[in-house]
């Protein structure tokens, strides 16, 4: 019996081990998601859309399918993409199908290795960030190797080498640069036992990034005229032609240092970055170094949040190909956050802001306050107030021109002093939002925005104030809940400006049946457009169906032209009319 109970005991012990082994051997799991956006375009006399303006592309489709296989410490994944044809507003070079992203990742102890394509960010991204945003068609993934390693508690090291995505173009020697980077984070409270219980938290970090590129030969010729007089007294004109070659650097390095301190409700972040001389197509081939500072300070406690941010950027466009410029932004190595607020209402996003990489000063301040529940002013559920201010301006630049190129090219370009603030306003936004739940059925939001938008600077890189747009925007958003499942949301918006396209009015009615259905009708009317025939209704009718993770929506109507921005990167969307189908699903 004794022997038998030992056997039984062993068997019992083995059970969990067996199920564990089962977990490792058969525990592999495939998950994924799919999204398909398809548009069918109609001709529209009012918008001037005809078959030929559409290039006879009546149908656009952007889609992806993502698969991830995970088994214990191993995972691998791939994303299949198709743009047939790319929808309006996406670069035609995206046309095609393929697998632009795949990876294999393994974790052993505190080491995590990725081979293939990956997304990475150092600090706030001032010198390196690879990311993707489907709605923008933005993807600067890096193809190569990425490693994360923690040699000691509280220390995190990252290293990477790779090349970046450029539409569907495979990497060939010289077609673009090779990016290398190293980053370290030191979390003091984890590293030093004595600080573990400290209320003050300190994190320091730093990174180095370098780009190697087979540089093209960049030559230019100058003509200088002179004359001589011969013995007979005739004047002979001569032209002296000289060819110069620019000494472009093969390696462009950058570094950044950062600190994060927090104590109780206070939090402070600062990051400073510098980039070595990097003459390229976005900065007129000047040899000046780049600099960036980004800092935020916040204080918060329950019911109150204060936030302040500032940044200063000079000559910080950093791409893995020096001749790359223009739109859509491709081959960006770094990311320079715009420090204005992203708004959720359509008319408030008509004049969006994106960072000017070649020189910008910015500040932002925000207050979030909740008037307490059950107080006289706050009402039964409390009232929430958000006030936000942001400003972006030029920096001071004293231009240096070269006698040889007759421009900035080939020189240091200009002189500036660190944190200097110029006279030209790029963007300003003052906004207030008040939100209140009156009872179980009624919720309301009221918002006001005042925006100053320098159209020349933001849209065309022309640095003057000849086309300033000053817009006032008002929003009322009202939700009525009939019962647990049924609700109606009404949104009224107005935009008033004497400039650009003039005044707008918008109304949205959205009927929701939780958790599956929504129907909406929307109209944005440009009633104040100075051109009579551009006083157009941009109407939309849509409905959607959600079944857990599958969502289908169908929309018919007009899309106004404008900039669609996510995270400070913008995509121009042309006006169109048609039917849009969106299908997303995860599993």
């Amino acid at each position: 019996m004794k022997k038998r109970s030992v056997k039984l005991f062993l068997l019992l012990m083995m059970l969990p081990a067996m199920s564990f082994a089962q977990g490792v051997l058969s525990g592999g799991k495939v998950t994924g998601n799919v999204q398909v956006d398809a548009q069918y375009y109609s001709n529209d006399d009012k918008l001037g859309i005809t078959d030929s303006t559409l290039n006879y592309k009546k149908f656009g489709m952007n889609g992806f399918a993502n698969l991830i296989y995970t088994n214990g410490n191993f995972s691998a994944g791939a994303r299949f993409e198709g743009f047939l044809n790319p929808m309006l507003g996406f670069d035609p070079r995206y046309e095609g199908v393929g697998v632009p992203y795949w990876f294999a990742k393994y974790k052993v102890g505190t080491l995590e290795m990725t081979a293939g394509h990956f997304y990475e960010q150092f600090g706030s991204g001032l010198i390196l960030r690879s990311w993707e945003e489907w709605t923008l068609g933005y993807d600067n993934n890096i193809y190569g190797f990425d490693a994360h390693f923690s040699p000691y508690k509280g220390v995190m090291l990252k290293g990477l080498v790779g090349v970046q995505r450029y539409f569907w173009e495979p990497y060939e020697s010289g077609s673009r640069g090779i990016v290398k980077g190293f980053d370290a984070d030191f979390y003091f409270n984890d590293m030093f036992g004595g600080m573990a219980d400290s209320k003050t938290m300190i994190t320091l970090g730093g990174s180095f990034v370098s780009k190697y590129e087979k540089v093209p030969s960049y030559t230019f010729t100058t003509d200088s005229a002179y004359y001589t007089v011969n013995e007979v007294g005739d004047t002979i004109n001569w032209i002296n032609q000289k060819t110069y070659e620019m000494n472009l650097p093969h390696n462009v390095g950058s570094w950044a240092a950062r600190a994060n301190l927090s104590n109780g409700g206070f939090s402070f972040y600062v990051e400073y970055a510098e980039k070595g001389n990097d003459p390229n197509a976005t900065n007129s081939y000047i040899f000046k170094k780049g600099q960036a500072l980004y800092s935020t300070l916040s204080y918060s406690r329950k019911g109150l949040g204060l936030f302040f941010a500032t940044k200063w950027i000079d000559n910080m466009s950093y791409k893995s190909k020096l001749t790359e410029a223009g739109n859509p932004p491709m081959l960006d190595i770094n990311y320079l956050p715009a420090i204005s607020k992203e708004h959720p209402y359509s008319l408030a996003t008509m004049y969006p802001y994106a960072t000017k990489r070649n020189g910008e000063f910015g500040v932002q301040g925000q207050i979030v306050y909740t008037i307490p529940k059950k107080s006289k002013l706050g009402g039964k559920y409390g009232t929430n107030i958000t006030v936000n201010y942001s400003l972006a301006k030029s920096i001071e630049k004293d231009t240096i021109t070269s006698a040889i190129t007759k421009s900035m090219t080939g020189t240091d370009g200009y002189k500036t002093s660190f944190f200097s603030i110029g006279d030209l306003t790029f963007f300003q936004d003052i906004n207030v939002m008040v939100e209140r739940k009156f009872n179980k059925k009624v919720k309301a939001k009221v918002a006001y925005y005042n925006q100053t938008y320098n159209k020349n600077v933001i849209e065309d890189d022309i640095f003057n104030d000849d086309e300033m747009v000053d817009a006032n925007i008002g929003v009322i958003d009202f939700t009525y809940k009939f019962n647990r499942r049924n609700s109606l949301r009404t949104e009224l918006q107005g935009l008033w400006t004497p400039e650009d396209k003039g005044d707008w009015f918008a109304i949205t009615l959205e009927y929701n049946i939780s958790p599956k259905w929504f129907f909406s009708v929307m109209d944005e009317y440009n009633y104040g457009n100075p051109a009579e025939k551009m006083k157009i209704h941009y109407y939309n009718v849509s409905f959607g169906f959600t079944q857990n993770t599958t969502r289908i929506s169908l929309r018919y109507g007009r899309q106004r032209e404008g900039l669609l921005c996510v995270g400070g990167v913008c995509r121009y969307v042309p006006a169109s009319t048609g039917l849009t189908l969106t299908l997303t699903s995860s599993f």
Partner: protein
Amino acid sequence: MKKFFLLIIAIFAFGTVFSQNETKALFKLPSVNLKTINGEPFNTKDISNDGKPVLITFWATWCKPCMKEHDAINDVYEEWVDETGVKLYAISIDNARSSNRVMPTVNGRGWEFTVLLDQNGDFKRAMNVNVPPHTFVVNGKGEVVWQHVGYLDGDEEEYIEIVEKVEKGEPLN
């Protein structure tokens, strides 16, 4: 006697496997490095709630339905915790542009749940999230058992029904 024991063990073992199937775990939570709202490192493997269910939401400060969803949940969160012991982890996918604004936003609005930062979307990708809001229910073993995209007024009532079922070990249909 021995056979009897073995039979019991076999039934027990089978039962374990079977009941595992019954909860229909979709997948285990992946391990991804995130940051806490104070900037400290946090691995998603540490998302736990003493064997009780966990709700994970993906949101961003610029996402209108997300803000609505979290305000609605915050109004009833205390009740939820009292009744089911559920814990909510709200994953902000705000990037460097707005991630430092997350803490004052969360505190200023008086949200009571745990907020984590996924600045470059690593956890978002690992969880196959297309667009926020996207909500997951995780059982006590760290397995995702239910997920939902989008937010319509009143959806939070469905979340808590699912959580109640998971907490009681009832099958989800």
